[in-house]
């Protein structure tokens, strides 16, 4: 009887654990990282990074135990102009041969309902700065193939000079707005 009770307790613990902290792998096909920069102050030019990877863990009971890890392949940037893409990839801006990836690793997470303030280290061109990413959780549920999915939208404003992406200052404004939407598949 004691063994049966212990077995039941372990089974319940085992069932309950994933509901507390679940880890999701980022689905690159449903992940978008867009960037917006002023062009001479005339307009806002937009671009995107096509290759985004990483994972996030959500602890439903204790949000502070949640975490986010993102990796962006900077070489995958796209701005609808081949010449501009090449310029942005080159030594004047992202210098992708020297710095192929940009990363974000969370250090603290606060939640208020579906809104998350994710503080973490953003590393671009080898320069690490602490930033706070505002994320809003969207729907959670199973896709037609029974994979559990959830996703977030969020945004962040950075100063490109802080990360050494300081080419052509008057042409490209210092403030860069990043908007991202990430969808994860439960591991």
């Amino acid at each position, binding site marked *: 009887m004691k063994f049966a009770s212990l077995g039941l307790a372990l089974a319940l613990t085992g069932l309950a654990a994933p509901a507390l902290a679940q880890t999701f792998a980022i689905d690159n096909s449903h992940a978008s990282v867009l960037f917006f920069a002023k062009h*001479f*102050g005339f307009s806002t030019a937009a671009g995107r990074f096509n290759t985004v990877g990483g994972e996030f863990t959500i602890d439903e009971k204790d949000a502070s135990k949640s975490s986010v890890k993102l990796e962006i392949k900077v070489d995958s940037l796209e701005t*609808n*102009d*081949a*010449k*501009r893409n*090449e*310029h942005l990839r*080159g*030594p*004047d801006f992202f*210098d992708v*041969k*020297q*710095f192929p990836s940009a990363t974000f690793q969370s250090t603290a997470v606060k939640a208020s309902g579906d809104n998350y303030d994710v503080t973490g280290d953003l590393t671009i*061109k*080898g*320069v690490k700065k602490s930033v706070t990413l505002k994320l809003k959780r969207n729907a959670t549920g199973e896709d037609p193939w029974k994979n559990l999915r959830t996703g977030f939208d969020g945004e962040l404003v950075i100063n490109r000079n802080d990360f*050494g992406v*300081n*080419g*052509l*200052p*008057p*042409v490209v404004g210092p403030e860069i707005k990043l908007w991202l939407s990430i969808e994860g598949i439960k591991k």
Partner: protein
Amino acid sequence: MDAVTELKVQTVLALAGAPLLTLGAVLAVGLWGARRASQPARPGLLAAALALSLAVAWGGLVGYPTAFPPVDRKLWVPALALAVPALFALVDRSSKADRLAVIAPLAALTLLGSATLVFAPILGGEYAPADRVGFGAALALAAWLSLDRASRALPAPPALAAVCFSALGAALAAAMAGTAIMGQALGGVACVSGVASIIAWRVPRLTLGAAGVAALLTPYLATVAIATLYGELPVTAAALFLIAPIGAATALFARSVVPATLLAALTAAVIAAGGVALTRQAETAKAAQAAPAEPAIGNPTSYDQL
């Protein structure tokens, strides 16, 4: 001031204003001091003025290191622009030394050491294979020794003019290849060496020496290499730009300063023009292969029209 005017003012100040002010100030103070002491100008004066003004130009256009070692390896260049001429100044001080026996290995070690510092993250990999780096270093060494020989046998203007026209061509090609800032940095080298050539023509007691050659070539060669290995400057064009300062050697055939300078400038310009032509050809081919952007409606502008 609107953003377009700000861009023009910033570029002119960084490319020419601050470097030329530095060049003029160092030479004026040095020559004034030498005049007071009734002595000829110190051999390292022109080298010091070139090293400082080129470091100011490069730092102003690309950036100065904010950490040691610099996270962005390109930012070694301003430090090297000062340190390498200081090293070669030691050769200038030792008049008894067999110069070639000292200069050749020292220049080779400097080139390989600088390449290791600036290109460590990609050295030996897909973007900077060892054979390509070795070939480039060999060409750079040939240019270095040739410029050193010309600077010993002739007054300073021919060597300065050869570097000026080499840098001018490389600046155009780098900008065409999509690295505008490296183009501006090379423009800074062209501007400083061109003005220094005119000053050295008017003030013949200014000599280059081994330190002056190092001051000219360190930022020039490093920027060409960065535009190629971190950027997209075609390798064939880069080879011509690395070797273009060899044009200074043709000045050895002329008998006076002005024809010697013109000959050196012309030879370097012809070699550099070959590099520009190769870059243009490569860019045209690349544009033909590139996937077209989404079609514009109405009156389209291209990124080249920035």
